[in-house]
């Protein structure tokens, strides 16, 4: 089992005729993801490397039955692509694009229908190992198992998953929620989904400075709404105040969003916080070995 994405997910690529879109469409197809085509306005009717191209998401959905869309569209047009997919009732929208204006995202998230989930933007996507990969993650580091993962990071996620896989700890679903300040899916959304997934026995949560997402996750745990073991890592403990560290959402601002506050929030709910990514496999092993006490 998994969350959000499984082997029956049918995927279209918005921006499929662009360099990024086509490259990753091929990689996803090689992984085993069911990529049935894509959308580039004005190029409908063409076929590119075996992928059918449509003018609109709505048309693509009607023809292919797609229920997932991944977006590789440049920043000035990406929010438009998100809203088009939402308007066409695509249930899972994964937006890879980095650099979307924040105000565009404020509008986009405010018009998403209740049955549509947006992941990202500025995210690497998600993968249910052995079933489906929708994103830019390198498939070979993942392995199937019983640990869920949710992360604000891209490469750091691969680093951590690689270590888990080498330690014989496989994953149910790994979700990259992205590094932007305004995103469609936050930590609590993923925890709630993992809570309902019988295969997921523990979750690794990879956070960083900026915002209060990690604190909200700790509060969810405190309220008893997430009962499985969690192992956390918080990046940016040594980041200075007021500087954006790469990710648009990774900033300590006015004393708020510090790594220390996030670590403390997890300490309070007895969630172990790894000092470095290398510690995570051992902490997960310990967590899995404990009987469920919460």
């Amino acid at each position, binding site marked *: 089992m998994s969350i959000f994405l499984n082997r029956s997910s049918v995927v279209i690529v918005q921006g499929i005729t662009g360099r990024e879109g086509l490259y990753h469409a091929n990689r996803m197809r090689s992984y085993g993801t069911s990529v049935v085509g894509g959308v580039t306005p004005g190029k409908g009717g063409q076929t590119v490397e075996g992928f059918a191209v449509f003018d609109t998401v709505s048309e693509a959905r009607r023809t292919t039955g797609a229920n997932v869309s991944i977006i590789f569209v440049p920043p000035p047009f990406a929010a438009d692509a998100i809203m088009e997919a939402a308007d066409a009732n695509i249930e899972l929208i994964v937006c890879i694009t980095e650099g979307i204006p924040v105000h565009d995202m404020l509008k986009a*998230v405010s018009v998403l229908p209740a049955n549509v989930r947006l992941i990202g933007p500025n995210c690497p996507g998600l993968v249910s190992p052995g079933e489906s990969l929708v994103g830019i993650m390198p498939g070979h580091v993942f392995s199937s198992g019983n640990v869920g993962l949710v992360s604000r990071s891209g*490469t750091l996620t691969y680093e951590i998953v690689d270590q888990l896989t080498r330690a014989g700890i496989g994953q149910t679903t790994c979700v990259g929620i992205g590094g932007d300040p305004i995103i469609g899916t936050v930590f609590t959304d993923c925890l709630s989904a993992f809570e309902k997934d019988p295969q997921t026995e523990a979750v690794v949560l990879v956070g960083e400075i900026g915002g209060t997402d990690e604190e909200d996750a700790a509060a969810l745990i405190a309220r008893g709404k997430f009962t499985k073991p969690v192992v956390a890592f918080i990046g*940016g403990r040594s*980041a200075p105040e*007021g500087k954006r560290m*790469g990710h*648009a959402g990774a900033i300590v601002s006015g004393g708020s969003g510090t790594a220390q506050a996030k670590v403390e929030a997890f300490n309070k709910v007895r969630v172990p916080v790894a000092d470095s990514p290398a510690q995570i496999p051992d902490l997960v092993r310990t967590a899995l070995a404990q009987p469920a006490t919460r």
Partner: protein
Amino acid sequence: MRLLEYQGKELFAKAGIPVPSGRVATTVEEAVQIMRDNPAPSVVKAQVLIGGRGKAGGIKFASSADDVREPAGAILGMRIANAQNPAGEVAKRVWIEQRLDIAKEMYLSITVDRASKRPIIIASSMGGMDIEEVAATNPGAIAKYPINPAGGYWPFIGRRVAKEASIPPEVTSQFVSVLGKLYALFFDCGAMLLEINPLAITKDGKLIASDAKVEIDDNAVFRRPEFEAWKSAAEDDELKARAVKAGLGENNYVGLSGDVGIIGNGAGLVMATLDAVTASGGTPANFLDVGGGAKADLMRDAVAIVTANPRVKSVFINIFGGITRGDEVAKGLVAALDGGNWSKDKLVIRLTGTNEREGREVLAKSGITAVETMNEGASRAVAIANG
């Protein structure tokens, strides 16, 4: 992108928000001419992005062409620093503005609230001080109101916020009007933050923005090309400018104060690398994210930028390759070392992932051995810097 005070006030003025009149000077002679044109009680203010300019002596007074020489001369070229930013910033401009007769100082801002995914109005009758301090000691004095972008701003919102923030009733209608204009400006310029602290009530009962702090979403600047000119006026860091020229994003290079240079692929990975270096007893000199799929040219430029920092004593390059290929990284590294005067003995590289083997072969030919893990790389780089 943060604007200097005079730039923020220019935006406010165009949007119809009352601001004190003023002019910018970049030399003492310009300051003298400004006072000659308008000999009135004035404030001479350092134009810097860093906080704490008042404490550092960056705000002085003048009232004539004669007595402005000394304050303007003192402030122009002054390096203003604070605890968070000991390197500080040089004041290249002063803003000479009409001195106000202030009766009361309040606070008003609009910012993006991540938790509610909405723009949010924040107001308080307690202004002229650090709003975080007010939040810590007197949270009840702060009113907050998230706005639904679909509905937008309506005057009833201003009236409600004024009441909740205990804004004096006699200025409520001015407050409602200023807030409406601030809201329109917020969307017009793609702002992350518009802050008026203090929002002053003058002795004759007028509401006026005594300071202007504006932060524009970097991702929205492309929609307002006129802001590009303001960018170079505000930015101070030469290495960051080089990084942007090399094709990196605005926030991909951050200068810090230590001596271990850091390069990695992916912001989260680079942040974790900074943490690893700190945990090993070292001090990061910078954050540099080369992003995904970096080619040899970009790697070469990245190394050149980091080693151009005179404080840097060692460099740690931490690569976990997904799309990024190890052989490309290695080639760029070798090119950087060949071209520059940086010794390979002061460089530590960790290379894992795609084309790792090919990358190590390229490095080996130049006598460089890559380490296996991030933690190993961090401690070795720290040892070199400290040794």
